[in-house]
């Protein structure tokens, strides 16, 4: 399920997807085939897709916990940046705080971690990351270099 609204004047993309992993995959594929994400440099595209995938999958897994729901993604482009806002109606972040996203201390090569990469990647690749809980909704905003 996907609803899309676009305005070429402001290089804006609004996409609403269902909160499941397949919809995340298809939503990303759709977003990256339209402006303003379609014409990013290779590096910006890599970073944007990595970050969006992690944020959206986290919402499916931890905010909605497998329950039905929707996720709204808004992308605007200005001054060489992409400003992204993602809204969901799932459970709030624990303590209303974003995870610290630290990669586990350097492992010895024998027992590498199988998880905990998501927020590390998000924090590594975004700027101005900001989370709010407003009227039963999670609002996450961040900026990506274009």
């Amino acid at each position, binding site marked *: 399920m996907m609803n899309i609204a676009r305005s070429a004047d402001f290089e804006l993309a609004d996409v609403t997807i269902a909160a499941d*992993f397949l919809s995340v*995959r298809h939503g990303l594929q759709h977003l990256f085939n339209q402006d303003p994400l379609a014409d990013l440099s290779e590096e910006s595209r*890599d970073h944007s897709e*990595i970050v969006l995938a992690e944020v959206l999958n986290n919402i499916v897994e931890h905010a909605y916990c497998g329950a039905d729901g929707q996720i709204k993604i808004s992308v605007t482009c200005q001054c060489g940046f992409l400003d992204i806002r993602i809204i969901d109606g799932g459970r709030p972040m624990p303590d209303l705080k974003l995870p610290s996203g630290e*990669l586990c201390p350097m492992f010895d*090569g024998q027992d590498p971690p*199988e998880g905990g*990469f*998501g927020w590390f*990647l998000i924090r590594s690749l975004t700027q101005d990351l900001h989370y709010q809980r407003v009227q039963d909704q999670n609002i996450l905003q961040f900026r990506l270099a274009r």
Partner: protein
Amino acid sequence: MELHAEKFDDVLIIRAVQDRIDAACAIRFKDKMREMTQSDAKRVILDMSQIAFIDSSGLGAIVAVMKAIGPGRKLELSGLTHTVQKVFRLTRMDTIFQIHERLPVGLAKAG
């Protein structure tokens, strides 16, 4: 999740024949990899040259497979595309796998 396997002496080549390893298929990927690596091959090389995108679930699944088939055997990776390389490098997982630019000579026709 489509994976094709071919064995060359003691090397098992598994080619991932799709463009993503993401949260939507990570569990199936892990299960299928475990099933396919139940052989006596000393080396397992996962050809990722068709994988254009991987997320942290896919990365975690690859690490889990590496642990599952070890410690006597290694999981090696081949043909990482641009985005996939970036995810491995950022998370430092590029330091724990042997990563080939392409399939070793003589094994390139596998799949």
